[in-house]
């Protein structure tokens, strides 16, 4: 993410296992963002109620790092046969390249997370994988990962609890994206879901030309560390990219990997896991 920090370490924030207002979130139509309240002057606006159907498929990813707290990323639940697939950034599960290290220990997805609240429970990963090229080369053009998660404390699968986004491959790069995520680095705190609505495709990062893989995508969105892996959706709830990185200057676009053949293969591998 910003300044190329792949993960942002946060102190653990234990919170009650209940929904906002003390109950499990029932589907409600609430405006996705707070109109007229552009906090910090950012276009990454706070989602008022992340438990609504269109937002609860997105969540925060926590990777326990022992005494170092938690690393933070974002992820999106995706429809699949096993009802348990989460898509995120490659560097949220493996540091990339041939010497890349796996972050397998205690990786969990918390959909609709907000201020310590876990309205749909915690879904611990039971299987993690990235694109083969992310592991082979560390090329950011392939910085995508998938997790297959177990059931939550209530015994529900992820699909039963929150549903899942559709997923698309090999589309034209030029799309209007909605970028979701849980930015944890300043000026954000990682406690709320944020969304950049109608983020237009801006082009490719010139660096992307040098790395193997399809050229990545750029949109304007004020992401910071922790938003890595956040889903880019099109046409409502179809996942078409995830946040990978940004640069340190304020006006830097958000860059995400193109979902092509290799990501489709990753999805197929994840879907086969039982």
């Amino acid at each position, binding site marked *: 993410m910003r*300044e*190329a*920090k792949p993960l942002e370490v946060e102190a653990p924030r234990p919170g009650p296992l209940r929904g906002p207002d003390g109950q499990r979130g029932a589907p409600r139509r609430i405006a996705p963002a707070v109109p007229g309240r552009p906090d910090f002057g950012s276009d990454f606006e706070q989602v008022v109620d992340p438990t609504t159907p269109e937002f609860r498929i997105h969540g925060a990813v926590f990777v326990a790092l022992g005494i170092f707290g938690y690393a933070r990323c974002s992820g999106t639940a995706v429809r699949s046969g096993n009802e348990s697939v989460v898509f995120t950034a490659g560097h949220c599960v493996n540091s*990339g*390249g041939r010497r890349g290290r796996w972050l397998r220990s205690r990786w969990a997805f918390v959909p609709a997370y907000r201020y310590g609240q876990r309205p749909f429970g915690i879904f611990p990963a039971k299987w993690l994988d990235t694109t083969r090229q992310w592991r082979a*080369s*560390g*090329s*950011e053009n392939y910085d995508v990962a998938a997790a297959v998660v177990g059931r939550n404390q209530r015994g529900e699968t992820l699909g039963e609890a929150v549903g899942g986004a559709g997923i698309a491959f090999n589309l034209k790069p030029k799309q209007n994206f909605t970028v979701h995520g849980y930015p944890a680095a300043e000026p954000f705190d990682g406690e709320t879901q944020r969304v950049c609505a109608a983020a237009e495709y*801006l*082009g*490719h*990062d*010139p*660096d992307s*030309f*040098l*790395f*193997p*893989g399809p*050229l990545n995508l*750029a949109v*304007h969105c004020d992401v910071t560390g922790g938003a890595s892996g956040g889903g880019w959706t099109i046409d409502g709830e179809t996942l078409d990219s995830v946040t990978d*990185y940004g*640069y*340190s*200057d*304020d*006006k*830097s*676009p958000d860059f995400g990997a193109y979902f092509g053949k290799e990501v489709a293969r990753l999805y197929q591998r994840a879907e086969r896991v039982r």
Partner: protein
Amino acid sequence: MSRRIASIAVLGLLLIGRGTQAAAAPALLPQIVPPRLLSEVGKPVPPRPLFDSSFTASASGGYKVKVFTFGSAVILEVDRRDRRRFSAAVYLARGVAVPRRLQATFGNFGKVSMRFRPAKNGGQSLCRFGERLSRRHGTYVGELDFKGEDGYVAIDLHRAKGSIVTPAGRCPRSRHHLTRAAAERAIEALLEPASGLAANARDGVATTSFLSIKRKTGAAFLAFHQETHGKLAILRVAIVRGGKSFHVNEAVTTAGVSPPPPFHGTGRYHAEPDGTSTWSGPLSVDFPGAPRFPLTGPDFEALIDVPF
């Protein structure tokens, strides 16, 4: 970044570093180095190529054109240089980048499709930074047809002498061993204080940077711009050493700079009491293919750093 592009960027920094030491002033560096360059820190390094295929040819306008590969890109660089000045436009495209073949289309500017024919006795072994390289000389045959923006450079050739360089192990340590005195000199140079004035602008994936460095040994100026057009990325750089560096008032609230050619005009920095600043004036630079490219305006964020 490609080694070549990196060399351009690093050249700028070295230029600064050699005569200046921007690299040295830890507090200064993060502020004056264009974010585009700083951002490379911590990012994965592009895959190290197993080969370096390249050829160079003279072109119109006094430019040299070099075509080479790096990572997954085929790169065409148009540059012109003398003792104090260096300017280049670098076009990056995806294509076929295998040792004996260079093939890519550079948008509407042209294309390259060349095959390498090795010379019978063209082998050579050399050492670079402790690495042994095997260079195979030969001739590239095919077609290079390229015409830059508004025809600032044009080249149409079918044969060019070139080479393929491949790694061949390591060189003996003694060949690249830094003496202690040399290392101390390098560290001293890095620690010499410098003043810097930088201005950066971003518009989507396009970025523009201007950098002026003042050191005891002289001044240096760098301008950098990058943009992408579909499946083509274009980087432009201009570097000049010498000339009169920026002047700044005692309160460090106003500054002005009038770099030598290929720069034109003056850039003016003005800081407000609330910490905001403006960067204005008719300062521009002649990049290859982009003459009189503006380097000031409301989109620029400028900052100045003058050591106590």
